[in-house]
């Protein structure tokens, strides 16, 4: 766990009783410092939305011969990204897109998108991709990029889907792709 400056400074109080250097205390008090939350994500989604994010993530990057988005923890990554690591505007785009997909699912299949069949979910995503939904136009690409980023920075993505090479040692700028048939990761 990263100790941010504020935590480090707060630790100083303990070292010097309660008499932290006044300007430091004033600086700290100026405004609450944001932190990188790496614990439970700040809730962004309702339970229904969370289920839909999970279902759609798995359709974007499904389980094949390696695990898919759900096993890779992508839904949690997306909630962290929107709740703790991004700015409000990004949230509205995703929430708006999810609502549009759900509305279309109710219209076409008479059920929430999270309960639609995988084929139906794929059809909904295809509509979103092709601009066939009434929601935010950029939703599909933004959502897809969140899934891809979350997957390929996860342990599953780095160590199973890709070829994990943390300390290459040597360098070869003309290495036959046929030897690896995967993307190198670290």
């Amino acid at each position: 766990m990263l100790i941010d400056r504020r935590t480090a400074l707060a630790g100083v109080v303990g070292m010097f009783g309660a008499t932290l250097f006044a300007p430091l205390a004033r600086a700290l008090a100026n405004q609450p410092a944001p932190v990188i939350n790496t614990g439970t994500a700040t809730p962004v989604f309702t339970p229904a939305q969370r289920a839909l994010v999970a279902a759609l993530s798995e359709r974007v990057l499904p389980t094949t011969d390696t695990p898919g988005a759900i096993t890779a923890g992508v839904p949690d990554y997306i909630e962290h990204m929107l709740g703790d690591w991004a700015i409000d505007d990004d949230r509205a785009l995703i929430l708006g897109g999810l609502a549009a997909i759900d509305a279309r699912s109710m219209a076409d299949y008479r059920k929430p998108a999270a309960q639609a069949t995988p084929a139906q979910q794929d059809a909904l995503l295809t509509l979103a991709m092709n601009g066939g939904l009434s929601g935010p136009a950029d939703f599909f690409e933004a959502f897809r990029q969140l899934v891809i980023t979350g997957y390929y920075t996860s342990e599953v993505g780095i160590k199973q889907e890709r070829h994990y090479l943390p300390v290459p040692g040597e360098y070869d700028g003309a290495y036959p792709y046929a030897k690896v048939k995967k993307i190198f990761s670290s």
Partner: protein
Amino acid sequence: MAATDRFDAIVIGSGVSGGWAAKELTEKGLRVLLVDRGRMVEHGEDYPYEGKSAFEIPARDRMPAAIAKSEYFALNGWVSPSTRPFFINDRLNPYDYDAPNKFNWVRPSVVGGKSLTWGRWSFRWGPNDFEANKLEGIGTDWPIRYDDVAPWYSYVEKYIGVSGGRENLPYLPDSEFMPPVPMNIAEQWLKGRLEGEFPGRKLINTRLSNITEDKPDQGRAKCQNRAQCHRGCSFGAYFSTQAVTLPAARATGRLTVRADAWATNIEYDPARKRVTGVRLADANTGKIEVIDARMVFLCASAMSSLHVLLNSRPADSERSYFHSNGALGSAVMDHIFRVNVSGEIPGMTDYVEYGRRPGGVYVPRFRNLEQEELPFKRGYGYQGGAGRQASTPEGFGASMKHGMREYGPWRFNMGAFGECLPYDDNRVMLNFCKTDRFGTPLLRFDVTFRDNEIKMMDDAQEQGMIMLRQAGLKNVNSYRGKHVPGEAIHEMGGARMGRDPGTSVLNEWNQAHDAPNLFVTDGAMMASVSCVNPSLTFMAMTARAADHAVKQMKAGVI
């Protein structure tokens, strides 16, 4: 620390210059106190994200926008969660400028300073760089020439290890190179094409302070091709104070290190025109302490050094002891950049890169080396490289996932770095209306890029695209970001060397005209900036100045 401790020298700052000063002075027999406002970082022990994968780093190593905006607003993308432990918090450590003339001041927060996080590109200056001001009647002439520094370049390069290829270019002299980081197959192709289409222009190996041969006497192993230098490297595969100069200085037994110690000003005896010591504020308690020494090496990084100098003044005055003329704070410069050109290199799709090199290739300056009628003076070079990224097929599902197991085409990208002229009215000063937590007036910047720099970047963008297209690349395009001084992190000047005490701050040995026992050997000393990365020059100049300082001390002059 006992009151009976006595120091021959105090070195302020422990980046590339300060580390070298500490090493040279201790190795020559001096007792040295090295102070740094940053916290201690021990080599190999305090690199918390070394070797970690994204999923082991907070926020997957993407800096959350809210934190960047609130705490690291001057760092403009340079800091990420994995390097954050090494950078200063801008909110807690403010500086000043007048909008709209923004200055992005990128500052470290650790012993070792920017030597831990630097880009490691390492170039010598050429003879023309030292002569340009005089030749063109711009700024003030350097009081030294290439030949004065050349032996010190060699001395430093042999010690730290610089990788690169011999090119015999008169305007970009070769270092004492270790074998170069190799070009990949696509870059080799591009080299042939570009040099064939544009005789006189070159595509050469990168020049880096990443070693390609082990240095067992220093406990350093060659680069392992991880591309994680910015997080610290326990192999010691790149030059940092932690890996190289600090161990050397400590080995002498004559070094004392004080971390978390802000040098607010230098103590001065105006009657004797001598520096007498340094005033320190403890970063955690604010406790003030004055420590005496026979000499001071000021190496706090250019703008921080200027801050110390400007704040070294009589209690009832706003004018620095070292501001007997108007030179202190004048002619602040940075490199101008944020021009990138890129394109796809055709073919060679059976090959990929095994390993992640620390650097790629370089296109040395080709403008204004001969008589040339161009709308700008001086020149620029490009740093670049080719690589292949995973394919990004459209759509979603299993076919997209498996499509992302293929590599896309070789894509080459290069970014220009250009020289900024020394304008006297690009300056820093103290803002007495605002103070930091130690009671020091804030440093205020008034620095802009001018017509010459903008025209240079226009040319770099145009020529870059022409070169890549004519060399046979496809889908060539360019990106132009906003040019904000400070962002290249090569800020320099403000305490320039010069022959004339009326128009400069330091002499040909980096000694202050107003105090022969004060040496400034970081970027503040620069009378111009060339277009190449300056750190190797800082190290060479520091070693040269330290040699002179010790000779003067032994001669009884200091």
